[in-house]
């Protein structure tokens, strides 16, 4: 075999130049002939009965082609994992921003003007803003058929937690709160929908699950699955938010009503108030350790805020209950999660999927225990670290695991030992570890593999079809590298095709850090299939055996005699001609060794591979303002074998930036049921100036289940960031942060309190 040449090398994104020079057509750039523009009228109240909607004046406005409300929908309840959605509010609105009506008009100005002409009579109802309030007896009900506002419950238990905690040398018992944050992608959610004469809809939508999204959409519109086709344009980021949304359905419904293409994109304001922000969680933890710092047991109680309907919050809460248990060698764990409805914006996936929240809590508790024991927090992590070739408390099969190496590298790079030893006032250093999955069988239930199609044309051009979703993270480049490597051709011979559900394989999409492993394995299998088919033609041309044929740099040769070679393109031409025009088509799939967890015990391996990481933050605290400046940051991540180191480093730096933003400033504030800061003036995200240097380090154990040994990075990049920073704040000030974000005002007050208690 020729040695690996393209996998493992840093390449700029294959579509990077197009994007950087403004040539890429993003989802919101799409214009179809005759296209109408839609706008949605959203509820101004968190909870109200709809008494009457009068759309007559809006309909009469010149340029308006359709005005729709719930009455114009099939009235079918649906949802990604629930049946609590309707396309527009039925008898009542359940959050500020709930869809009430929509207009399609010849241009956006007219559509917006028409919204002002719709008259809605509401009867305001009492509402609940917080999940803690929502769960109290007598709280107003968000959905009448969900008593107590309980949207879902989750329980998991292994070992004997009570005994373990009772027999511990030290126990940390603490309550944490993680707030609501917004994904802040560059391009708001939206789509263009087009309907043909047979009623078949094509939806051009930037979204993370182009195949899966069709299922609830078809149901909502009373269509069969084959009547909904999704085409995936380039789009401006997702970070978990861009899955099912009524924003798309509004465009689809209006396209049906008007018979014309309809474009509907959220304004930024609408995207804030009716997007899919992070699930806020109240998490109580009890974590015990023995004298040596070995963890004895862990109990957590999680209360998560679903908002007014379930997107994926209940699975996110479940994830917060137990995924982090595969970071260390836990034996006794128990968790209970409740997902509660409130009259606030529905919440959902955001990079980390509950494991961010849980990691913040566990890694804060680990820090607390290390301090109680007078032990180096890094040493305590290493001592408890799960190892390679092990099985976690929930039956997860860990193959490769570079967690210890991550801690060792990160501590070395940051000068951890020296800095810990030399305490400087108001300066601190903090460490946090993380684990994650590369695909989550508990989420993708039917199967959780990946598939690919590789077409080699008469001209030798290679087209790769997949069903996942590149939102800017670099998936296309990774797939091109895998195909080029497997086929033995230069990278720029490969095109990675737009996902079109009429052509592409069914893919579960981009979430759960699964793209590289699942989709990559699918592309790998298809590339191998295409290679064998083409190699057979080359073998015939060279009068050799297919097993002896290799391809390198676009030339086929028989092993051992590279000087007598055949041009790949010549072989492709020959192959197509002898098949009367039929291109070489490779197909293939990956069947991961995962199982659906047992519904009762939750035992079962949910992912083929598990990435790990360790991040270390250094901070400086300004004693007059309470402002925290992160001065330095190192991030060592076990990513399996790196396919594109440059892209991985970008993912790590992006994850840290997002985590830093969350820790220090990002916060959706709800006041009287309304998002009070639905704009980038008061929803703060860090600028380049707020970022410290972030030094990534790739730890690369070979992962037997990964394509070329690779695992994922998307979510682990952010998982440990929050607690790395808050542990550093503790080191600098003695203040233990239990609530995100860390506002300077709050920190200052806590520092004052500490001062008082020392003096007093």
């Amino acid at each position, binding site marked *: 075999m020729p040695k690996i040449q393209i996998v493992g090398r840093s390449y700029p994104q294959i579509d990077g130049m197009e994007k950087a020079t403004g040539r890429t057509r993003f989802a919101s750039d799409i214009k179809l002939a005759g296209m109408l523009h839609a706008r949605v009228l959203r509820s101004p109240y968190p909870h109200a009965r709809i008494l009457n909607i009068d759309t007559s004046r809006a309909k009469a406005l010149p340029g308006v082609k359709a005005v729709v409300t719930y009455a114009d929908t099939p009235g079918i309840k649906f949802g990604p994992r629930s049946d609590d959605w309707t396309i527009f509010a039925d008898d009542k609105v359940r959050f500020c921003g709930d869809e009430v009506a929509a207009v399609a008009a010849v241009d*956006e*100005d007219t559509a*917006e003007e028409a919204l002002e002409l719709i008259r809605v009579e509401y009867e305001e109802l009492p509402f609940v803003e917080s999940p803690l309030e929502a769960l109290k007896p007598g709280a107003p009900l968000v959905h009448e058929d969900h008593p107590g506002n309980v949207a879902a419950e989750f329980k998991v238990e292994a070992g004997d937690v009570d005994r373990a905690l009772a027999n511990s040398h030290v126990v940390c018992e603490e309550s944490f709160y993680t707030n609501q944050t917004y994904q802040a992608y560059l391009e708001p959610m939206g789509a263009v929908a087009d309907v043909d004469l047979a009623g078949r809809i094509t939806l051009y939508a930037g979204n993370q699950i182009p195949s899966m999204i069709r299922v609830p959409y078809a149901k909502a519109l009373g269509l069969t699955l084959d009547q909904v086709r999704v085409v995936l344009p380039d789009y401006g980021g997702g970070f978990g938010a861009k899955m099912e949304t009524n924003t798309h359905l509004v465009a689809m419904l209006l396209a049906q009503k008007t018979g014309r293409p309809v474009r509907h994109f959220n*304004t930024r*304001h609408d995207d804030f108030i009716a997007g899919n922000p992070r699930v806020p969680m109240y998490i109580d933890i009890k974590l015990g350790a023995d004298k040596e710092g070995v963890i004895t047991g862990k109990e957590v109680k999680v209360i998560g805020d679903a908002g007014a309907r379930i997107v994926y919050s209940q699975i996110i809460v479940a994830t917060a209950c137990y995924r982090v248990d595969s970071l260390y060698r836990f034996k006794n764990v128990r968790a209970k999660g409740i997902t509660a409805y409130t009259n606030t914006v529905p919440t959902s996936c955001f990079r980390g999927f509950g494991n961010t929240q849980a990691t913040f809590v566990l890694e804060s508790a680990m820090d607390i225990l290390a301090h109680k024991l007078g032990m180096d927090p890094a040493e305590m992590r290493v001592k408890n670290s799960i190892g390679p070739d092990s099985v976690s408390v929930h039956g997860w099969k860990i193959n490769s695991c570079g967690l210890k190496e991550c801690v060792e590298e990160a501590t070395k790079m940051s000068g951890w030992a020296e800095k810990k030893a030399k305490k400087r006032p108001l300066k601190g250093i903090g460490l946090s570890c993380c684990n994650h999955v590369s695909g989550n069988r508990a989420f993708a239930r039917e199967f959780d593999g990946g598939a690919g199609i590789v077409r080699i044309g008469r001209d030798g051009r290679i087209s790769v079809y997949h069903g996942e979703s590149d939102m800017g993270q670099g998936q296309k480049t990774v797939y091109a590298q895998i195909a080029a490597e497997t086929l033995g051709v230069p990278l720029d011979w490969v095109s990675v095709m737009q996902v079109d559900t009429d052509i592409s394989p069914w893919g579960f999409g981009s979430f759960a850090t699964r793209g590289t492993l699942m989709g990559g394995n699918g592309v790998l299998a298809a590339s191998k299939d295409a290679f064998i088919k083409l190699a057979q033609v080359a073998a015939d041309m060279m009068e050799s055996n297919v097993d002896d044929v290799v391809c390198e740099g676009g030339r086929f040769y028989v092993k051992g005699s590279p000087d007598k070679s055949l041009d790949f393109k010549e072989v492709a031409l020959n192959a197509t001609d002898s098949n009367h025009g039929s291109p070489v088509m490779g197909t293939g799939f990956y069947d991961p060794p995962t199982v659906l967890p047992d519904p009762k015990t939750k035992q079962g391996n949910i992912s083929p591979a598990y990435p790990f990481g360790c991040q270390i933050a250094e901070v400086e605290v300004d004693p*007059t*303002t309470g402002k925290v400046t992160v001065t330095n940051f190192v991030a060592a991540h076990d990513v399996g074998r790196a396919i594109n180191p440059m892209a991985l480093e970008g993912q790590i730096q992006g994850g840290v930036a997002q985590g830093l933003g969350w820790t220090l*400033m990002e916060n959706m*504030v709800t*006041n009287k049921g309304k998002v*009070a*800061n639905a704009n980038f*003036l*008061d929803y*703060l995200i*860090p*600028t380049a*100036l*707020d970022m410290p240097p972030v030094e990534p380090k790739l730890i690369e154990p070979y992962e037997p289940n990964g394509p070329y040994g690779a695992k994922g990075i998307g979510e682990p990049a952010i998982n440990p960031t929050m607690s790395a920073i808050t542990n550093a704040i503790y080191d600098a000030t003695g203040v233990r942060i239990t609530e995100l974000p860390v506002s*300077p*005002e709050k920190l*200052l007050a806590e520092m004052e309190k500490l001062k008082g208690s020392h003096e007093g």
Partner: protein
Amino acid sequence: MRIKPFEYHAASDLREAVQMLSEEGADARALAGGTDLVLAMKHKAVLPKKVVSLHRITEMAAINTEGDEIKIGALATHSELAAHLELQKVVPILCQAVSLIGSWQIRNSATIGGNLAHASPAADSAAPLLALDATLVTTSPSGDENIPLASFFSGPGATILHPGQIIKEIIILRPQGRSSGRYLKLMRKRAVDLSQAGVAFQAELDPAGEKLAKVAIGLGGMAPTPIRAPEAEGMLEGLSCAEALKKIPSVARAVVAATSPIDDIRASAAYRKLVAEAFFKQAAQEVLTSLTAG
């Protein structure tokens, strides 16, 4: 968010501009950099029938530092002001303040006239200009009128300008003795944030270089309009720098006493006061020390 249709004119000179603006009365708006106005129009906070752009009136962007009166055209952008070498020498406090406004992109189009006319209580140019005793030269169809900045603001987002009256330029008197100034701004991140508290401290020595002839304290985001703290100033005037340095803590309390900030999503009133006090101490310390070292 869409902008409602409106009539647009680009005035070719000052006279035409004020003529057009006064014809439409309160329904017309002048447009400078547009970084406040366009946003307000998108949010339907203002719905002008007519917008008169000033961008063609190039003399309104001039900065003249030759005489004793430093003249800054209302259309000068924050970038131009921040990078102006002579201003950096004579009134560095102003350059510091405007260099903290928004982002590069905002500073490249936003103007100082727009910053004052928009009359945000937190406007970053206002506190230092108040401390520099700036005067505004305004123009309307009935002629020019000089307005001291100290009497220009009438409330949050409100000024005493009447329809058809615009700011032509800003005049600052060149400091006579040795002077120094410092502006400190409380932000929630390092760029692109409005000030939650802005403290401007400007001091000037007498010709002998011994006593503080003038002390001025400007405060932004601490009251319904940008304000001065005259009582606090009076506590320092006439003192030597060494004497003044010792009085900083008590003056700082007088500074805070002059304020009446609000609680909002950006910061609580108590926190604004706490930081304003600390910022005043820091700014005064730096300024007085540099004048001592001089």
